[in-house]
């Protein structure tokens, strides 16, 4: 799912109470996974909360709510800050980064991240980005989806992806999961 769809989603306990809502997503410093979420109170006039929700405390990420065991899942922000490379509170420094291939072609600007819960529930992977494509791709200026390798280099300014990622660009989410799998398989094949 697109990470932008996750913000404003309610955080609901197993007891059925909405204790907060997602304000922003906190990404790991390498941009490859979701560390957790910053929170706002529920309701029109409630401002941001001091507490954060680390991914390890999320019981489920559904299409209508994030489920947590109870209110204790919301913890002190220090739990996230150390691993995130300081992206807490800025909406992650991934949005707005330029995607550069390892051969030096600028593919475009990141406008959204595509996340997927992987490996049972161990982590919430960033599997791809939605980018506003540059002239290097067909349909320059339109939004396309680009798959990501498991690991990559990211600086906040640039994200480095293998040049072959260009071959797996998709226009919408349908079939994107398969493109990610194919792309990662191909990368593994190369390194073996």
């Amino acid at each position, binding site marked *: 799912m697109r990470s932008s769809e996750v913000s404003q989603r309610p955080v*609901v*306990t197993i*007891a*059925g109470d*909405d204790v907060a809502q997602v304000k922003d997503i906190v990404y790991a410093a390498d941009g490859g996974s979701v560390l957790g979420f910053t929170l706002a109170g529920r309701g029109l006039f409630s401002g941001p909360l001091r507490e954060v929700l680390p991914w390890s405390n999320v019981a489920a990420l*559904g299409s209508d709510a994030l*489920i947590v065991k109870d209110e204790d899942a919301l913890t002190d922000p220090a739990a996230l800050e150390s691993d995130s490379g300081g992206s807490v509170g800025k909406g992650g420094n991934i949005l707005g980064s330029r995607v550069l291939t390892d051969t030096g072609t600028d593919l475009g600007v990141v406008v959204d991240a595509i996340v997927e819960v992987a490996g049972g529930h161990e982590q919430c992977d960033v599997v791809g980005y939605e980018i506003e494509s540059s002239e290097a791709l067909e349909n320059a200026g339109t939004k396309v989806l680009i798959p990501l390798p498991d690991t990559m280099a990211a600086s906040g300014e640039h994200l480095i992806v293998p040049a072959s990622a260009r071959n797996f660009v998709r226009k919408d989410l349908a079939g994107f999961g398969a493109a990610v799998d194919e792309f990662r398989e191909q990368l593994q094949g190369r390194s073996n």
Partner: protein
Amino acid sequence: MLFSKSRKHKVVSTGTAETVARVKGFVVDPVTRHVVALVVGKSKQGDTLPWRGISGFGPDAVTVADEAAIGPADEPIAALAGKSNTMLKKQAISSFGDHIGTVTDVAFNGDTGAIESVLIDGEPVPADRFLGVGSFAVVIEAEPTP
């Protein structure tokens, strides 16, 4: 016994044969999955009839030995009562965080108060999958994916 069918039951005292109150709602404890009390109106005694004060829960009326069974809500019941804990017409979400429908009714045992099933858009879900009810939704344990 269904919530929808017994929501407007008369509460009748078996001692005086008079109608002493009328059922307005149900107080459910999601941990024990029991109806622990009835919210009643039109009684001078109070607005709560604890389940243990009920003599009989029949298809047409609730009977009590004496009007004194009705009183103000005590602490554990007050904590479970209130709008955020009503179940009827509340949305239901699975423990995976997906919307699954609206609670249309709740079936319970008239003798013990035990919840038997939660009806979501008319489809009964066994009570052991009922996890909680709160301000946002009724939470139903998701079926394990095969």
